């Protein structure tokens, strides 16, 4: 199998050894292994050093990790001094984390999930769920391929390559799309659930929603939405027990 393809497939498991010391480091080392194979024959000492560097501390959004992997691998083959490669890795953590999180976790995922849920509620059923999986995975696989290719092409100039790419523009439009999808989702889903319960039920739910929203904002992050829900259910259980 093509080494770049093997590295890309391994990037799907880049968080396999996630921990609080090296974070994605070991996963990056695992993904780097096929890409560094050629270096072993050319310069075994450099190969050993490159393997050590590849598994050191690293953290970013997993979908953009290919940019750092590709750039550092190319730098290893170009004989860039080790400390400079280590600095590049460190420098890429924050921007790749921030851009990836904005693009995927705060943008694409809520936008697609919002559309999917609305489509399910409006009767699309399984097709919507399948469409969500297809759309999301097509985008993330293409992004993974693009990231690795761009990193390997740009090497130490990967920062400029990211700045002039489609990434910053995509982040600008995916955020509003996510906001719109989530805004549409809430009333549609609320109606879907509440149409069976009548006005009294809807008023009760509105009360719980308002209390949950307000309390989790006032007392967050110690009172998360999950903790609020569990507390509300325990309170309900208590009131039912005492006959209220």
């Amino acid at each position, binding site marked *: 199998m093509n080494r770049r393809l093997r590295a890309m497939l391994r990037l*799907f*498991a880049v*968080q*396999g*050894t*996630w*921990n*609080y*010391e090296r*974070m994605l480091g*070991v*996963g990056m080392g*695992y993904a780097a*292994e096929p890409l560094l194979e050629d270096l072993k024959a050319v310069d075994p000492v450099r*190969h*050993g050093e490159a393997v*050590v560097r590849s*598994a050191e501390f690293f953290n970013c959004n997993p*979908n953009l990790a290919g940019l750092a992997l590709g750039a550092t691998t190319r730098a290893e083959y170009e004989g860039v001094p080790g400390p400079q490669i280590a600095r590049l890795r460190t420098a890429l953590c924050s921007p790749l*984390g921030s851009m990836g*999180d904005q693009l995927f976790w*705060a943008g694409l995922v*809520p936008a697609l*999930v919002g559309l999917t849920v609305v489509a*399910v509620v*409006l009767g699309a059923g399984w097709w919507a*769920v399948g469409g*969500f*999986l297809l759309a999301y*995975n097509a985008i993330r696989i293409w992004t993974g391929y693009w990231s690795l290719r761009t990193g390997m092409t740009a090497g130490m100039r990967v920062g400029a390559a990211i700045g002039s790419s489609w990434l910053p523009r995509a982040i600008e439009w995916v955020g*509003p799309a996510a*906001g*719109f999808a*989530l*805004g*549409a989702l*809430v*009333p*549609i*889903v*609320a*109606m*879907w659930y*509440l149409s069976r*319960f009548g006005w009294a039920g809807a008023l*009760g*739910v509105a009360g*719980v929603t308002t*209390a*949950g*929203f307000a309390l*989790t904002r006032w007392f967050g992050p110690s009172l*998360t*939405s*999950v903790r*609020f*829900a569990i507390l*509300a*259910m325990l309170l*309900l259980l208590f009131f039912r027990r005492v006959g209220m």
Partner: protein
Amino acid sequence: MTDFSPEVVLPLLLWGTLVALDLVSVPQAMISRPVVAGSVAGVLVGDVEVGLRVGILFELFALDVLPAGAVRYPDYGPATVSAVALGAGTPWELGLGLSAALGLVIAVVGGWSLQIVRRWNARAIQRRAAALAAGESSAIRWLQYGGILRDGLRGFALTLTGLVLASTIADSLRLDRQSAVAFTLVAIGSALAAAVSGAFRGSGRGPRLKWLMAGVAVGTTIAVLA
């Protein structure tokens, strides 16, 4: 009520393990999203409607989570699978609340178990520190396989716990109709609060907030007309 026979439980265990792995380790294909996990679990237990209703309920909770960096978050995948197993075969208006209660507890336990696996991963790395410092690729490979195996075992144990609790609750707990409906309403209200909270936090005060409001207007119109 779900028939907790091996023919039903084994596919649910496999599915719960896969969705737990998908959350962080591999492949992050979004099968761990509750709407996906719940839909498939609904098919596996033979109650697609409950699968979708439970899946979407937990999806509302999941929208309040931004899994950025090293943030701690609940594991909704196995939680949704367990909740669907408990709610299947019961009219969703009566079973959704109890299913949500079980699922939320499993989700919290799942979040804790993720922290434990991460600490175990760190310990495994410390044990192989010399091999890593020597640049041994095999050490990296085995650490990676070990990490994925640990997460898989976590997902399996979490799903198994959820299914055992679901079976126990289904056999032993009987709620009167009024209490069951009240539980369902509290679960829906809490889930909507989570979704609203997540939507507002994600929007901030910038242009995204205007798009959020536009979405609310369009959504309300569709909800009234549909």
